[in-house]
């Protein structure tokens, strides 16, 4: 995990607090709710800081808990004291933040208004952030340490290792480049390699680590710089075969005697480790250098095996190892089984017999005339039918659906059945021998239907919508009446005396009217309407009845007149939403409706 800078840390945590805790609060809320709201924010911030700092503390390795090689390396690279101090500071900061939060949460319990609680929260958050601002240096240092630490090479201190050491520029890195897949920088200047490098190689089916160190100069331990110290650390802690590389050609810039001096100075570090002195750069100056590496590995392997055999654990393993071989139960020979077909094929392959003629050969022979005719390979009952054109469809049916070896038998059965049916008379067309009466009836029925339809059409065409006059209002013509009745079959010949004929009235000569005020028609003149009694007098016997009828009329009209209605059909509502019915609250009384 990345160690954030102080500024980033503060920003992230505060924005998180804002996002992940509720933000809405009003001063009219209940006080316990307000308090809880602000306490939550304080605790949330504290929690975040605490978690992150704890994570940082646990992620960084404790120098006492790791392998002494790495502990020493880290000391060399990062200074043990500084490292421990930085982590200590972080720890203190964490505790301080916790305390701050605790105090302010306690104070918040006595906050009596929104403003006070809010100020308390501001104070708490502010103090926590200030604490963290002071840790800026520690956090930066730890971030750098983390980055460098992640780039350290993974050297397993417990596995087989070869360690290359010697003066700078003697050829240690070149050696490791050759032997392993590592790609270490090789340059003519000294101290090209500034830190440890690891490569891996295989020997005797085992993985070996080869560690390349920066060169060591000859001066006492106290005066050594960081780079050299790394080499020394490696030498000191790794149980490896040491390859002390020398340069007889003195191309590195140091004489052989100087190199030998260095060797003797470092000698105490080689205690308990197989040592090989490598004379390098033999192309420049020849000193035979026979597969030094093999010797070194063998030596180390032997050393390791020895130490292992001396250990007690080996005996346990040896007891459990046992090689099982099945015992022979009789003298019968049991050779491996090879099927006949395989044997034949093997023989054929060996003898190389020419196979049957392939299609390909045929194609080559015929050239352009060749047609792929797979039908010739068909396996049919009669071989000469192979080239037949097989019909597939007949009149909308698939012939393949009818194919059946027993079709003729079934067909004969079907035909027999058909004959039986025919004999039974199923297929005789039954003539409907209808007698004359039935025909008459049919004719009449069709006439009736026609007549009905015509009548319906007639009535539809009349197109009288709305108020209709009664049937008797219209005058019936004599001619139409007689025609209709005649169509229906009645005899309408001699009907001059019948009741429906209008008696023609004798008309006197019409005088030309003079320009005088003509007298209005009296009850006995020619207009027919005058011959009928007026409506308010028809059906009334005497004056008493007349009076009664008039009062009845007036009575029935009273209600309507009072309501201002035009008549009994006037249902107009002047006020659809009267205010006195719809306004106001629903009080006791009728609340079931409006």
């Amino acid at each position: 995990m990345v160690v954030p800078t102080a500024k980033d840390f503060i920003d992230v945590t505060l924005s998180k607090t804002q996002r992940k805790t509720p933000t809405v609060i009003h001063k009219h809320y209940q006080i316990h709710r307000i308090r809880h709201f602000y306490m939550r924010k304080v605790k949330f911030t504290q929690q975040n800081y605490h978690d992150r700092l704890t994570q940082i503390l646990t992620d960084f390795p404790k120098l006492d808990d790791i392998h002494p090689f790495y502990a020493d390396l880290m000391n060399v690279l990062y200074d043990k004291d500084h490292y421990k101090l930085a982590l200590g500071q972080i720890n203190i900061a964490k505790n301080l933040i916790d305390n701050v939060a605790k105090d302010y949460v306690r104070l918040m319990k006595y906050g009596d208004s929104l403003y006070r609680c809010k100020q308390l929260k501001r104070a708490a958050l502010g103090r926590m952030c200030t604490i963290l601002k002071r840790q800026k240096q520690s956090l930066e240092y730890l971030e750098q340490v983390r980055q460098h630490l992640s780039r350290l090479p993974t050297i397993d201190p417990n596995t087989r290792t070869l360690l290359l050491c010697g003066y700078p520029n003697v050829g240690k890195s070149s050696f490791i480049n050759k032997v392993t897949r590592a790609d270490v920088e090789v340059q003519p200047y000294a101290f090209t390699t500034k830190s440890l490098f690891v490569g891996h190689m295989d020997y005797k089916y085992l993985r070996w680590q080869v560690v390349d160190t920066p060169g060591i100069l000859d001066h006492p331990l106290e005066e050594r710089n960081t780079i050299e110290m790394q080499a020394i650390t490696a030498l000191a802690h790794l149980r490896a075969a040491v390859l002390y590389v020398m340069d007889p050609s003195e191309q590195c810039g140091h004489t052989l005697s100087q190199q030998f001096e260095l060797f003797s100075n470092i000698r105490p570090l080689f205690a308990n480790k197989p040592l090989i002195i490598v004379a390098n750069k033999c192309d420049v100056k020849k000193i035979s250098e026979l597969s030094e590496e093999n010797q070194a590995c063998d030596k180390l392997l032997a050393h390791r095996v020895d130490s292992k055999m001396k250990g007690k654990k080996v005996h346990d393993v040896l007891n459990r190892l046992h090689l099982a071989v099945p015992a022979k139960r009789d003298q019968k020979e049991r050779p491996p089984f090879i099927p006949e077909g395989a044997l034949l094929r093997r023989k054929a392959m060996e003898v190389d017999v020419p196979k049957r003629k392939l299609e390909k050969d045929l194609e080559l022979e015929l050239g352009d005339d060749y047609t792929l005719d797979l039908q010739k390979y068909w396996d049919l009952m009669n071989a000469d039918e192979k080239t037949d054109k097989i019909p597939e469809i007949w009149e909308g049916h698939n012939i393949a659906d009818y194919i059946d070896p027993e079709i003729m038998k079934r067909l004969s059965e079907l035909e027999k059945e058909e004959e039986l049916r025919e004999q039974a008379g199923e297929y005789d067309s039954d003539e409907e021998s209808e007698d004359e009466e039935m025909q008459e009836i049919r004719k009449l029925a069709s006439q009736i239907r026609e007549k009905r339809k015509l009548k319906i059409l007639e009535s539809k065409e009349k197109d009288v919508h709305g108020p209709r006059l009664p049937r008797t209002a219209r005058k019936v013509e004599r001619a139409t009446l007689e025609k209709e009745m005649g169509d229906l079959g009645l005899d309408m010949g001699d009907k001059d005396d019948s009741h429906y004929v209008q008696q023609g009235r004798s008309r006197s000569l019409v005088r030309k009217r003079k320009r005088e005020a003509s007298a209005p028609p009296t009850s006995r003149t020619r207009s027919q309407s005058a011959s009928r009694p007026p409506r308010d007098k028809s059906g009334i016997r005497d004056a008493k009845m007349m009076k009664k009828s008039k009062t009845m009329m007036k009575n029935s009209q009273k209600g309507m007149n009072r309501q201002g209605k035009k008549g009994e059909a006037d249902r107009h509502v002047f006020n659809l939403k009267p205010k006195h019915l719809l306004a106001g609250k629903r009080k006791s009384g009728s609340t079931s409706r409006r």
Partner: protein
Amino acid sequence: MRIEKCFFCSGPVYPGHGMMFVRNDCKVFRFCRSKCHRNFKKKRNPRKTRWTKAFRKSAGKELTVDNSLEFEKRRCIPVKYNRELWNKTVEAMKRVEAIKQKRSARFIMNRLKKGKELEKAEAINEVKKNIHLIKAPHAGDSKKLEEKMVQKLAEDVEMDE
């Protein structure tokens, strides 16, 4: 090459016609024309769509169980080609087809016969109820009366003689 059956209307789908739809459960639907295809997409049930053969068969309007219909059937086991068998089959097919058509025609005719009887009864009913639209009840009365009178006179005359 074979003539398939349309899934919707059960009509023949000739090669080069129609559409095939393969559903995700690997069921294949063939349609003879877009009418059937569109109806299928509208999720209509062919057994309820009146113009399809499926409806007609399920509603009993056409011959469903018959020996002559058992001849045309997709068989699982293929039969090896044999010229005389094929020839015989083609002839048999023609014969079977003729019988099949006769029988299904007869079936439909029988079904329609009942309608004829109903028609008869209806005509009689119609005449009984609505005869007044054509003929007045007393239509031929005066004539009959006259004839009667004439007959009576003739009888009287005879008697007199």
